[in-house]
């Protein structure tokens, strides 16, 4: 099973990715998806700008995916991360895991997201609705703590 990693500016379709993974197979019993969306609770955000490190982004997510494949009996693994300007309500990231049983699919998707948050070379900054450029989003200590769970 070879993970599918894509770093792209364009939006993605969860349904298309699930279909590509599962149509015509009968060995998959469980598919878990995680979709990360651009939030704007305060109503002050025009868009998030996602900067990334081309080359390393693919390589690093690939390494995290290989670690997941080594750890859980996966039948499919997809990770898609967008860059560029992303507006409130739009999709940013997708992780899709497939396995015979639900535990592996849940754990692998959870693991992938924790590591994407702390290891994938992406940086967010805010473009505000009033036309000004906001600051760079700061990393959260809780994300490091979440990733740390998997080495216990």
């Amino acid at each position, binding site marked *: 099973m070879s993970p599918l990693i894509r770093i792209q500016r364009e939006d993605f379709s969860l349904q298309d990715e699930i279909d590509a993974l599962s149509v015509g197979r009968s060995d998959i019993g469980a598919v878990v998806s995680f979709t*990360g969306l651009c939030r704007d609770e305060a109503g002050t955000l025009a868009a998030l700008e*996602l*900067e*990334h*490190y081309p*080359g*390393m982004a693919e*390589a*690093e997510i690939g390494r995290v995916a290989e670690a997941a494949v080594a750890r859980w009996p996966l039948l499919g693994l997809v990770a898609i*991360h967008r860059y560029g300007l992303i507006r409130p309500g739009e999709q*940013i*990231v997708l992780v899709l895991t497939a396995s015979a049983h639900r535990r592996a699919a849940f754990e692998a998707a959870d693991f992938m*997201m924790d590591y*994407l*948050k*702390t*290891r*994938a*070379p*992406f*940086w*967010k*900054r805010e473009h505000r609705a009033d036309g000004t450029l906001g600051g*760079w*989003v*700061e*990393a959260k200590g809780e*994300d490091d703590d979440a990733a740390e769970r998997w080495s216990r």
Partner: protein
Amino acid sequence: MTAAPAMTATGTRTVKLVYFAWVRERVGIPDETLDIPTDLATVTDLVRWLKARGENYQAAFAREALVRAALDHVHAKPGSPLGDAREIAFFPPMTGG
């Protein structure tokens, strides 16, 4: 990366440095190719050598512990040996996902 690092007679080698997010903004350029001394052993050695080069680097690395590094697309620690890395990146903690 099969080519050997470009060595000069005076003990320097050529590397590409790349910067992201506010590290990029403070250094003032997205990337540069520099000849660095071969006796810089670790990521921290390189950071301190850069800080001696100008105020822009001092601003970018003012709090050294806040800046992360990667050697040839692989995360590195402050004490990691530079080895024969050809592309060295500096950036803030990541906020993707």
